[in-house]
């Protein structure tokens, strides 16, 4: 039998979860106290899982590398969170959210998981409101919604441009309550550097106290990796500087399969790269596409005049603008999914229509909606029959400010330009990784007792994630899925006593971690960690980014192998092991990124089709759209590591019983 059993329950799609949930064995409260759960990560997935498991009575330990749980990368999410509440009465339903997500993922996600996600989505909003999360509201006091890409309904809940922050602070408050009650022990500034397997089950972790540099051993009956995504393999991405793959990668090296590593989301609306010094890229939330229209000039001479600084975007008359998303995709317009929007921008820029000096930028323009949509609305409300242009602009500005104020401020801070006056310039950037640790319906990896939640797993978004669905998935996993599914495993573990950490497996794993740290210091090379990271990132972006092809991927694989070799000969890690040492932390992470980069390219090379965020130039329609090959590639590619640089592919077939698969069309 294949090593991959997805454990999707039998029965009709809309009853699978409800039925299954009620059959999972329970663990009685007295036993729960003796069951220890390690949660690595304090983002939305980790904090929500830890708080809920502790409320249920389990003993929980939480780890994060930041100085506080509240600083996990989820804090940076801007635009919103989806839920099938149908508060706007626009025809939304659980089925529609399910359908949109499967279609948005280009038919490469599991039906069972996605339906469950849609089912629990409503409860997430209820839970967050009960915690005091201050979502945006209408004047009547009810919750407000907006639209995100790939949908035709308004199902996105938000808190200005700080939705992730407010949701995370909500989950963090739940976590804090459990910390205060003594049910959770928090280990901030701790980095997990390996998992410990005993008799085929995951039984704990090795973590490094980042302040003292000491290695620690921690036992758990189960270990949950909620460690986020690996977009930083590209060096430049919208992820936080510390986001990394280490936790998932260490699990992978100890036997956990890594699924669909090549599925990367390139987000269409980010602030363009301005120079070599750049350390990260900044997202301008997708919510802006509700009111911002994307365009480039129709005429090359206008492009040249703009690049030379002789004209501004606002000087180009309406008829000379190419609103290419509205032109190519009239049904969804500016709200097509991210992969489609990003590729369309690349197509225009490659054709020479990019509007900044580097030729890699397009406009995101609010002027017309600001004035004629919102300005008019406000004027009408105020009873002004014939508002002047200046009044319209002024009124519109107020509305736009309330909706997107912090994003506009952020843009101005970074670029020095005022987006209320001139159109924003944007370009696609690496943003999210759909791939991750392979998990079954219980969110368990193929190693017993080891789970993966949130962005760290691969399960719900197929080949492309829809906007506002990552927050939903993280909280679904943590609040509403794992608290049930973990019972299937832990109910069998009530007889297992806590394993003392002086056991051989702990000692051996710790020694291996120590050896690697010593190796870093022993190299005493000439190049900084960043030097290697930047080189890796450039290769990944150029050959395994928005467009990929066989030749480029083969070249990249060879090149990354060379980087790996050089890294282990010539990297310089200053300072000592037993102290606060951010360079050592980076070295650990980049060493793993290099190995991951190779696997991503191999996965992309293996997948001889285009789907979602994975666009192989050899496989496209005449109109330049992604061309899937359902006959040969309708599977999850789960990779098992044999040794560094050598993997075996396992396939999990995807079965569609409720949705008819078709070519994705947003026209």
């Amino acid at each position, binding site marked *: 039998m294949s090593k991959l059993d997805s454990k999707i329950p039998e029965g009709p799609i809309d009853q699978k979860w409800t039925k299954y949930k009620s059959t999972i064995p329970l663990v009685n409260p007295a036993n729960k106290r003796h069951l220890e759960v390690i949660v690595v990560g304090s983002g939305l997935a980790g904090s*929500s899982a830890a708080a*809920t498991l502790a*409320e249920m009575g389990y003993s929980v330990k939480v780890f994060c590398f*930041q*100085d*506080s749980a*509240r*600083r996990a*990368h989820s*804090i*940076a999410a801007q635009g919103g969170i989806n839920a099938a*509440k149908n*508060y706007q009465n626009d025809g939304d339903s659980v089925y529609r959210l399910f359908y949109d997500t499967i279609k948005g993922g280009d038919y490469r996600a599991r039906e069972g998981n996605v339906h469950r996600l849609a089912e629990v989505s409503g409860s997430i*909003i*209820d*839970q967050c*409101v*009960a915690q*005091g999360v*201050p979502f945006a*509201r*209408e004047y009547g*006091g*009810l*919750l407000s919604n907006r639209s995100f890409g790939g949908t035709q309904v308004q199902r996105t809940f938000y*808190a*200005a441009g700080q939705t*992730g*922050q407010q949701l995370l602070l909500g989950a*963090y*408050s*739940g976590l*804090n*309550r459990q910390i*205060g009650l003594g049910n959770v022990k*928090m280990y*901030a500034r701790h980095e997990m550097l390996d998992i410990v397997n005993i008799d085929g089950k995951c039984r704990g972790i090795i973590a490094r106290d980042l*302040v003292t540099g000491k290695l620690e051993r921690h036992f758990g009956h189960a270990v949950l990796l909620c460690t986020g995504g690996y977009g930083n393999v590209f060096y430049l991405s919208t992820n*936080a*500087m510390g986001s990394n793959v280490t936790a998932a990668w260490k699990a992978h090296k100890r036997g956990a399969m890594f699924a669909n590593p090549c599925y990367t989301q390139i987000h269409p609306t980010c602030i363009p790269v*301005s*120079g070599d*010094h*750049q*350390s*990260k890229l*900044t997202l301008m939330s997708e919510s802006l596409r509700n009111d911002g229209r994307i365009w480039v000039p129709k005429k090359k001479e206008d492009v040249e005049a703009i690049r030379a600084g002789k004209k501004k975007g606002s000087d180009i008359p309406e008829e000379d603008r190419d609103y290419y998303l509205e032109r190519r995709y009239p049904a969804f317009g500016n709200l097509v999914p991210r992969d489609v929007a990003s590729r369309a921008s690349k197509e225009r820029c490659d054709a020479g229509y990019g509007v900044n000096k580097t030729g890699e930028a397009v406009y995101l323009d609010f002027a017309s909606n600001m004035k004629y949509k919102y300005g008019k609305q406000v004027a009408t409300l105020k009873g002004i029959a014939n508002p002047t242009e200046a009044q319209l602009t002024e009124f519109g500005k107020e509305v736009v400010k309330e909706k997107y104020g912090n994003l506009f401020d*952020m843009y101005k*801070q*970074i670029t*020095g330009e005022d987006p209320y006056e001139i159109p924003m310039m944007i370009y696609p950037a690496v943003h999210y990784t759909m791939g991750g640790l392979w998990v079954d319906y219980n969110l368990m990896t193929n190693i017993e007792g080891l789970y993966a939640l949130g962005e760290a797993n691969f399960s719900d978004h197929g080949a492309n994630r829809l906007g506002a669905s990552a927050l939903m998935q993280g909280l679904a996993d943590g609040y509403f899925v794992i*608290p049930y599914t973990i019972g299937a495993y832990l109910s069998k573990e009530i007889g297992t006593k806590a394993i003392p950490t002086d056991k051989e497996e702990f000692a051996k794993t710790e020694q291996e971690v120590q050896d690697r740290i010593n190796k870093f210091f022993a190299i005493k090379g*000439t190049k*900084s960690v*960043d030097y290697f990271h930047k080189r890796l990132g450039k290769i990944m972006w150029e050959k395994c980014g928005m467009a990929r092809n066989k030749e480029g991927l083969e070249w990249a694989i060879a090149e990354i192998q060379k980087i790996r070799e050089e890294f282990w000969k010539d990297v*310089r890690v*200053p300072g000592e092991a037993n*102290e*606060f040492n*951010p360079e050592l932390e980076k070295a650990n992470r980049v060493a793993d990124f290099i190995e991951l980069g190779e696997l991503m390219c191999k996965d992309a090379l293996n997948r001889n089709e285009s789907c979602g965020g994975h666009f192989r130039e050899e496989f496209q329609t005449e109109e330049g759209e992604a061309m899937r090959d359902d006959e040969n590639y309708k599977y999850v590619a789960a990779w098992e590591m044999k040794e560094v640089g050598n993997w075996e592919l396992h396939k999990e077939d995807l079965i569609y019983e409720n949705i008819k698969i078709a070519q994705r069309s947003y026209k």
Partner: protein
Amino acid sequence: MNLTLKVWRQKNTNDKGKFETYKAENISPDMSFLEMFDVVNERLIVEGKEPIAFDHDCREGICGSCSMYINGRPHGPNNGVTTCQLHMRSFKDGDIIVVEPWRSAAFPVIKDLAVDRSSFDRIQAAGGFVSVNTGNAQDANNLPIPKNDADESFAAAACIGCGACVAACKNSSAMLFVGAKVTQFALLPQGKPEATQRVLAMVNQMDAEGFGSCTNTGACSAECPKEISLSVIARMNREYLSAQLFAE
């Protein structure tokens, strides 16, 4: 542009620490302040010296990690931004820039510019929550909340927990930070039932952590990157007084 940096170097909490001078050369005005530090660190590493340690993560003003005291002001010369959002175009060629960590007894230095702010987490754990378990919450729209209350609550909830308010205050008071959390909940019906215990528990923990008292100078709010209003302190004081009356 070329700059001179005077940076606080301190090996660990017990070390005495001192200023060291560094040159930052060929700095582009488009760089962020932290990217300028990256350039300096890159050079130190290649020269075989120890790079300067500092906290940072999101680099877009939301995680609250970055925390540099620049030329006598937390997060530097501009209002309403964090250190990571400060760009070099705010400085001039030839400038001398003095960079220190947050200074407060409740925020011990870990190394160089990185400090220990876990006292903030302990204050939150004392009462910064609504006691509601997961599951069984009522439908979200069953609890309408006037838009103004929701907006005001949100404005207080925008605090990123960076600690600049404490660093700015001559008494190292954490009233703005604590007031922001108390205010977020005080304005919402969900927060009402526990209002009394919450404010007492959080203020007690704040005192126990060694933060100073508030003498209403307003430096905290002036330096707060999220421009949290001083009114949150007034609201917390009101809540605290009435809670004390209740408690007695």
